[in-house]
Every structure is written in C-alpha cells, then in structure tokens.
C-alpha cells in the first residue's frame, strides 16, 4: 500500500527541486506581496486609529494574518489555467498514459512547487512585517499543528482547483474560472481581511465554505492559536477534503470520456 503511493512522494520531490529554476519568478511575486503588505499596514493603521483591537486582532496580528494568507494563496499557483493549457496543447496525453492517477499526480506535483513557493514568499513577506510592525507571540509547541493546518489548506486549494481545472476537459476558457476562483479566495476566503469584515449573513456562510479553509482559518490559527479552533479546522477541512476529492474523481471519470486533445 505504501509502495503504491511512494511514487507520488517522488513526483512532489522532483517538482520541489525543479521549482528552483523559477526562483526569480517567486522572488518577484514576493516583492510584490511585500509592497501590498506595506500598503495594508498604512490602511489598517488608519482603521485602527489608536484602537487596541479590531475584529479581535491587534495591528501586528492583522498584518501577520495578511502575510500568512498572501503566502497561502499566492504560492499555490494557477492550477486551473495549467490544466486548461495542458488540455489545449495536448500535453495532457503524456500524463494520461502513465501508471498513476492523473489527479493524484497533479496534487503531488502541485504540493512540491507550492511548498517551495510558500517558504520563500512567507520568508520575504515576514521580513517586511517584522521590520514595520514587529513580531507577534508564537508558541513553538503550536508550530507542528500549524504545519498540519497549512498543508490541509493547501490541499483544499488544490482539490477545488483540480475540480474546476478538470472542467477544462470540456470548457475552453479555464482562465475565466481561475479569475473567479481567485477572487472568491480574496473575499469570502478571507485573504484580504478576516471574515468578520463582512455583514453577519455573508460571514456565517463563508465560515462554512471551503474557501475559508485555504486562507482565513490557517491564518487565524497562526496569529491566535487555540486547540479548539485547530480541531474544528481539521474536522471541517477533512470533511470538505473528502467531498472535493470524491467529486473531482467522479468528474475526472466522466470528463475523461469527453476529452478531446488538440494535435490529434
């Protein structure tokens, strides 16, 4: 059983190493994010206007929240567009004739490059936050739990992207789907601000949607960890993970029969 899945570990490993070739792309994204963080520090400073807490967070907590959500969403890449491009160019044929599950292959590949980008983007943004608002208190004991919540968030990002990406087997314009998906993460996923910024109805709905598990929940755990929240995030995330992976597997089975590859 372990051997059966070992190949996916090696796929992640090789893509992690391959990502070094794109280090300058990642660094340029990081610099852009650092700039956004600088702007948000100024904006939030006006909102705080001398208040200690906004939405239950201090100003440094709010900025570190942003550092975390930006790193989560930006590092995960554009998987929907990528699958769409593979279908359009016919490259998908190279993956479908191999003895592995295409969706799990894409997951392993995506995780490999995402971890690489996450580390780099988080590190560069963290330097900016550290210089401008200073550190926040983090208990070292919580770090392993944080890593689990982060990996779960990245996995859910993938699961949603894979589901939408496989629609590219049928729909031609995958970039439009990617655009909408990323904007949902920005807003009701909590990337730009904690979900409490929304009217209560939207906030309550967003709290139960998988988008919030990618940005809002892991970032909130990062700035304000509690075991109760952690258990809720894991339970909630695993349920969404199972639902999304099953839906993606079914969609893949259905869509592969409809696949039409260019160049053939």
């Amino acid at each position, binding site marked *: 059983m372990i051997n059966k899945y070992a190949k996916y570990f090696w796929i992640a490993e090789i893509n992690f190493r*391959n990502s070094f070739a794109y280090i300058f792309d990642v660094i340029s994204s990081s610099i852009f994010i650092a700039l956004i963080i600088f702007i948000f520090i100024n904006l939030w400073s006006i909102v705080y206007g001398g208040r200690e807490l906004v939405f239950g967070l201090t100003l440094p907590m709010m900025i570190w929240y942003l550092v975390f959500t930006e790193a989560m969403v930006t590092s995960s890449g554009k998987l929907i567009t990528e699958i769409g491009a593979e279908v359009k160019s016919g490259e998908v044929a190279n993956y*479908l004739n191999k003895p592995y599950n295409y969706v799990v292959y894409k997951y392993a590949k995506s995780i490999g490059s995402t971890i690489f980008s996450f580390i780099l983007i988080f590190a560069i943004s963290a330097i900016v936050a550290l210089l401008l608002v200073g550190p926040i208190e983090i208990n070292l004991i919580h770090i392993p739990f944080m890593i689990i919540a982060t990996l779960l968030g990245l996995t859910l990002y993938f699961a949603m992207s894979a589901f939408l990406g496989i629609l590219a087997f049928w729909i031609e314009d995958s970039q439009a789907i990617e655009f909408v998906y990323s904007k949902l993460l920005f807003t009701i996923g909590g990337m730009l601000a904690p979900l409490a910024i929304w009217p209560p109805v939207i906030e309550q709905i967003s709290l139960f949607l998988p988008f919030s598990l990618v940005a809002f929940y892991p970032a909130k755990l990062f700035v304000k960890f509690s075991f109760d929240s952690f258990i809720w995030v894991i339970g909630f995330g695993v349920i969404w993970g199972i639902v999304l992976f099953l839906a993606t597997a079914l969609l893949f089975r259905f869509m592969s029969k409809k696949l039409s590859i260019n160049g*053939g």
Partner: protein
Amino acid sequence: MESEISIQNLTKVFKIKEKKQGLAKLTKFLKPYSKELIAVDNISIEIKKGELVGFIGPNGAGKSTTIKMLSGILFPTEGKISVANLDPQKERRILAYKIGTIFGQKPQLWFHLPAIDTFKLFSKIYDLDKKDFEKRLSFLVKKFAIGSFVDQPVRKLSLGQRMRCEFVLALLHKPSILFLDEPTIGMDLIVKKSIRELIKKINKEENVTVILTSHDMTDVEDVCDRAIIINEGTIVYDGSFEQLKNNFSSKKVIEIVSETKIKLPNHKSVSIMKKGDYSATVEIDTKKKSLKRFLDKLISDNVIDDITIKEQPIEEIIEEIYKKKVKK
C-alpha cells in the same frame, strides 16, 4: 500469430464548439452551437508482435487520434480495440506498463533537471526494482550513447541529445509496444538518421512492436515494413512500403540550376513546374521515363551548376491514392 494490436470498426467523432461572431455570441449560452467532426471513420487494423508499422497522413488525418485511442487516452465513439490483450479504455493503467510513448512535440523529460532525475522518477512511477532499473539504465545509456550528458540539465542539451534521452525514458520499463508520434520533428537529417537506426535496432533486439507516425516519408520508409495511409479518418492504403513506393510514388521533383541557358528534355512524362532562363523545376514520372535517361540528357544538353532531386510530397501521393480509391 495472434495480433498484438487489434482494431475493429473504430470510429471517433469529436464535437466541436462553433465560435460565432458579434451578437450571435450572446445566444451561445442559451443554445450552444456544435458540429461533429469525424476524426476516425470505421477503420480496422491487425498488427502482429514485432511489426514496424508506419502511420502516414496529412495534418488532421486521424493518425494521432488513433494512437491516443490505442493508448487509452481517448475514448472511441464506436468500435473495439485490443492492445496487448487489454482494453485500453478500461485497463489504461495496466496497459501503461506495457507501452512506451514518445510524442515529438511534447517532451516528457523535466526541462530544468538532468535526464537522470527523470529516469529515476520513472523507475518509481513504473514500480521498477532498483537493481533491474540500474541494469536496464546502464544498458540503454550505452545503447543510446547518452552517458556524457545524462547528468546535464535537459535545457542545455541539443534536440538530438534530448530525443535520445526521451527514447531511453520510453524504453526504461521494457515496453512491448512503442508509439512514436512525430519523433523526428524539427531535427536535422543526421540526427533523424541516427534516431531511425535506433528504432530499428530496438525493434530487432527486443522485438518491440513499433507504431510510427510521421510527416516525413523518409522516416517511415526507412524504418517501417508496413505503411498505413490514413486520410480524412479512413485507411486509403495498407500494405508494404515497397508496393506503395512502386505503385504510387513514381514522381520526382527536380530543381536544376544551369550555367548556360537551360534546355529541358522534351518528353510527355516531364512536366515543367517553373522555368527561368537559367533555372527550372520539373516533375518527372519515373514509371514512364527513367530518371537516369532524363539526367543523362539533361547533363549532355546543359552545363549544370546545381541539381536537387526530391520525392513527390506525401500529400500528393495520398491525394493520388485517395483519388484512385485503391485499397489493398
């Protein structure tokens, strides 16, 4: 002998979404326009173990679609396929262990990493035993002479070196069938020749069944014993290459540059395609007039500066065969 590949009444129809202009685009959402494109139209083929088969045809003829159905990537609209006694669509992942594929325009090597890294990854993907993999790799590295650059990033390799690595990758798991889709595309003549030699060698030594598609008739002619010509989704010729060449490819295109005013031999088998004072392009039907006699006459009447003899383009041969509706 039992067939390694058996195709019976295979048909593939694609539904193509039609793009509308202007306001008609808006109604697309209410009523999508689509038309049907028959990519493969009721073809039947039997291929025996160890055969070298060339699929020839122009763009959009249905060659690659057929190969993709044989490897389980595309689903047929109708018909039955058996490859290595497996159903490619139902048993795609089991079949993957038995086939090797090279799509000339879609490399499988990781571009920024040395080829050896992709070889190691594929050994995991194909569940190869570590010792077997090392033995197989050292055999293939020697056979394809890639030892001197296997540790260099793929992006630094020449096209020919890269393709040799692609072959090693496709053969690592000892496939019994090799699908080669335009493996020599973009290569110069010398590299093409070496790739062709390697395909023949592997077929001979490992009895691998080879299905080759190429626009280049020389590729197919040199490598394959059997040619299957597909045009508009149907088989228009299936037989030996020898017979194909003798019967249908008797025309040559000759480009001549002369130092003196050009004088062309007059014969009904010679048709002038282009003529200037000192140069000309003619087509000669070698069945009606021998090439040697034509050239002898040309050389005796002119002071030849340069001469190029070309095969009749594949599309023309196919067109002729198609027009004659000849089937073996």
